[in-house]
């Protein structure tokens, strides 16, 4: 602000950028204050208290501030408000969408888990049923084969017993014949058949 300083005689006049015309017409007097900082008494005194400038300042302030107020309230602020409001709406709708997507996901997960549990239970039931059926069949087959085996054993035992009885009966007849023949050879006469049989029976009983 030093370029257009207006000073009276005895004070520096060769300022760095020279003087501005018009500023120099004010009469200045040097006044040194108690703080040692010199001040100049301008024509209107302390510039902010120069009442001559008040009317133009107030008129231009009212004009500029009024226009600025109109520009702000009619043009600038509604635009900013709209953008902020749109963004807020967008964010809340996005959040809403995200929320509903999450709910959908949760529902899908729940449905999947339910289906999974159902399938598991079903598989379990099928496995159990199959196992039961197979066990029953095996048991039945075992019983059947056991029964047929028992029948066969009984038949075999019966035939063994019959064979044994027959064999034992043959032994007696052979013994009687052999004994008769031996007696005939030794005595030269026919042996008493009945006595031979008795003897053989007695011998058989002893053995």
């Amino acid at each position, binding site marked *: 602000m030093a370029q257009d300083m207006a000073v009276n005689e005895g004070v520096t006049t060769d300022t760095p950028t020279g003087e501005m015309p018009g500023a120099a017409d004010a009469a200045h007097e040097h006044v040194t204050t108690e703080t040692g900082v010199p001040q100049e008494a301008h024509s209107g005194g302390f510039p902010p208290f120069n009442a001559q400038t008040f*009317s*133009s300042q107030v008129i231009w302030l009212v004009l500029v*501030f009024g226009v600025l107020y109109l*520009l*702000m309230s009619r043009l600038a602020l509604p635009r900013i408000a709209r953008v902020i409001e749109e963004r807020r709406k967008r964010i809340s709708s996005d959040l809403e969408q995200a929320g509903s997507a999450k709910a959908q996901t949760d529902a899908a997960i729940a449905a999947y888990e339910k289906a999974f549990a159902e399938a598991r239970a079903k598989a379990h039931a099928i496995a159990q049923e199959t196992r039961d059926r197979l066990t029953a069949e095996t048991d039945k087959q075992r019983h059947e084969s056991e029964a047929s085996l028992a029948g066969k054993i009984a038949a075999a035992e019966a035939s063994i017993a019959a064979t044994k009885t027959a064999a034992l009966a043959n032994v007696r007849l052979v013994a009687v014949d052999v004994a008769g023949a031996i007696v005939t050879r030794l005595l030269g006469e026919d042996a008493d058949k009945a006595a031979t049989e008795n003897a053989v029976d007695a011998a058989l009983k002893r053995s």
Partner: protein
Amino acid sequence: MAAEAEHAGSFPVDPLHQFMIHKIVPLQIGGYDASFTNSSLWMVVTACVVTAFTVLAMGRKAMVPGRFQAAAEMFYEFIYNMVRDNAGHEAIRFFPFVFTLFMFIFCTNVIGLFPYAFTATSHIIVTFALAITVFLGVTLTGIYLHGFKFFRLFVPSGVPVVLLPLVVAIEVISYISRPISHSVRLFANMLAGHITLEVFAGFVLTFGAMGTVGYVGAVLPMAMIVALTGLELLVAALQAYVFAILTCMYLHDAMHPGH
């Protein structure tokens, strides 16, 4: 200059010269001086900067804001929240006014920090005009909204009857002195800051005139200017904030006088 600056009592810079108002286009309206001055010029510059900032920054109206748009929205929401929190929801219709007030003072203060610029808010008449507008606006709003009940503002509840005349007198005086404190605070801050800067700049010139030793000595006031410029930037923003928030508090009184 070098020789003259060393004369006792002379100072290379006039700290008050920056507050001088000179006419650019002389005008007279109805007998009043309405000249377009340097003060008017810088007020117009301020208005243009504010308008450009708030309108052009929102030009693209992007969903994801760029730097300027984010800054404009930041100012918007800052003032919006200030009005809502300090003056209440009902006062939100005054938001455009408070926003204009804040932006005007803030930009005038900050632009005034640039060399060769003029600080319109360093003149008491400007700050007083703004403060008296707020004062009258708040008072009329209060009377319009609450009628005679608005004057309960001056009668605090729970005060003994004996003390009541005294308290009411104090309340009335403090209410009437509001525009004075409101305007002087801003004016004095801007004035003092600019004078301080100018005085230190003067020291730099004084030292500089002393030759080599002076150049070394001039470093100190120069560093002070740098530091003070930062401080003045803070003061410029802070005083605009203080002016706006006091306006909000006065509005709150007009909205809710019977507290």
